[in-house]
């Protein structure tokens, strides 16, 4: 290889990588594209084989989803549950993770392993105990029960994630803060927590995604009052073929709030995911 042809070669490589990424992205977006198209089609067009490319688009099913199926009510339920989960999970997760990052490793290790085990547990097996506990406490079909259940299954991840972030904040800073006149709590709040902000953003987003999209617990633990969007959308469908367009429109609807949040927080998210990869 000569020096002269190397930029050309590099350019060709860039093109190849770009094309590969396009294909990869297309494969990933296929279900979404299909859902978007289906939501705009009449059910009869939606199931023709081969699929029709040219059809008369209709927003009828979107209208039905948003205005005839209590979409806003379910969205409100979803947002309450998600917000509740995030606002409990992240602060408590941060406290636990900070403590674990500051106690000796041999004490923190078993706790972190135990948390990991909880994470590995199939959710199906946890749903039933939660249902039984909920019945016992008379909390079935309440936000509290679903939020607590989601916090419980989400917490190991939040703690693990934040633990990594706190470990990277040097202990000297805690000590400098103590000497400068901080109590442990002040040192955490004023010095450590602001430095862990990228981590908290990531933890909050993941908690949000998990709780917003969660289906199984929501199905088992909610009722008519607290039904969340995923459960509601699933019930649009069923075996009735004509409802597929409606389901697809619901799926697009459920995505919108999350897409908006992601767009707003994208910058923080990428920074949070890569923070600590290189020493800053």
């Amino acid at each position, binding site marked *: 290889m000569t020096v002269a042809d190397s930029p050309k070669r590099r350019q060709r490589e860039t093109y190849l990588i770009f094309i590969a990424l396009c294909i990869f992205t297309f494969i990933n977006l296929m279900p979404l594209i299909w859902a978007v198209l289906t939501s705009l089609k009449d059910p009869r067009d939606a199931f023709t084989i081969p699929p029709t490319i040219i059809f008369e688009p209709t927003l009828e099913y979107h209208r039905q989803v948003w205005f005839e199926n209590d979409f806003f009510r379910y969205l409100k339920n979803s947002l309450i549950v998600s917000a509740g989960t995030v606002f409990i999970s992240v602060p408590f997760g941060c406290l636990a993770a900070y403590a674990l990052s500051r106690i000796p490793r041999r004490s923190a290790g078993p706790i972190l392993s135990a948390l990991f085990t909880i994470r590995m547990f199939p959710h199906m097996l946890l749903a039933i105990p939660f249902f039984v506990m909920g019945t016992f406490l008379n909390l079935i079909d309440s936000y509290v029960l679903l939020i607590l259940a989601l916090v419980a299954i989400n917490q190991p991840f939040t703690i693990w994630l934040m633990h990594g972030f706190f470990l990277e904040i*040097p202990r*000297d*800073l805690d*000590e*400098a*803060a*103590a*000497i*400068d*006149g*901080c*109590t442990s709590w*002040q040192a955490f709040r004023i*010095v450590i927590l*602001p*430095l862990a902000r990228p981590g908290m953003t990531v933890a909050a987003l993941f908690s949000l995604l998990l709780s917003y999209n969660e289906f199984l617990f929501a199905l088992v633990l909610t009722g008519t009052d607290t039904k969340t969007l995923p459960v509601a959308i699933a019930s649009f469908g069923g075996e009735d073929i004509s409802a597929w367009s409606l389901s697809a429109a619901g799926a697009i609807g459920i995505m919108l709030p999350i897409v908006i949040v992601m767009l707003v927080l994208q910058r923080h998210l990428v920074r949070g995911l890569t923070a600590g990869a290189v020493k*800053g």
Partner: protein
Amino acid sequence: MAPLAIRRATKSFGGFEVLHGIDIDIEDGEFVVLVGPSGCGKSTLLRLIAGLEDITTGEILIDDKEVSRLHPKDRDIAMVFQSYALYPHMSVAENMGFSLRMRDVKPPERDRKVQAAAEILGLTPLLDRYPRQLSGGQRQRVAMGRAIVRDPKVFLFDEPLSNLDAKLRVQMRAEIRVLHKKLKTTIVYVTHDQIEAMTMADKIVVLRDGHVEQIGSPLELYDTPANAFVGGFIGSPAMNMLNGRIGEGGRSFVTDNGAELPLAAPPRIEPGRATIMGLRPEDIEIDEAGFPAQVQLIEPTGADIHVNLEVSGDVLTAVFHERLGLSEGQSVRLSIPVDKVHFFDPDSGDRIVG
């Protein structure tokens, strides 16, 4: 400004004792350096004073007040960390003013004190910058600024210069010294570098394996080391140590390798007693009437010449200020002025008054 006293302080981690009953008295305004090889417990001792580690037994008194159970924030101390430990999300001014903020000093007063400290350390143009925008030397200065802004009773320095390059280190060494003269605050300074200890300290505490080996002024330690360890640790190049015994009539020192080194005057040690003879490299003299040695290695440093000399199997390091025109392999004759020789007990390592 306050005196500091450490009484019978011990520290154990788990069941493992790392400090074994430390007693140190530090006077008001004194600059004390804790020095010793790594693992000697000097940083642990500093952290006990700061309150970052709990003392196991014993007590620490700052300004005659027992503080060993107090939280660091209640001890009225300031500390400069090896890593500087500046708060990355705060500007230089916020870093320096942080301790005042935590003590509810009003903003105008706070700004005035930060300004004054910045003035002393030449940080005024940097007050709005963030730590990541500063060089190592500037960070070091901010860390000191953060310490002095509050006018604490005691300053603690934990190897503050070890992350700087050699030239900057020498410069900061002098600056800290000047700063101490200006502020007259009690300073406890930890280092493993004996040159730092010698050049900065009013009083040096030499530690080894959690014991105090000797406390004294730099020149006391240099001239009359309490034991072979201190003798070897203080001074560069290190003191030569020769195992042997006092010869007949006290007129010579006979090394274990059989060389007989004449002593100009008999030491007050009974002849025949096994001893370690400690000999500073700069005290060895070329003397035609002396004992024979062979030049093994010559290391010119510019100002001085370090020469390794072989004396029947033992190697002595000597430092000469004059350019003697020696060459490797050459035979020379040496003598040792008796008043510059140190004798240590080979078993305990303690100094033998001789």
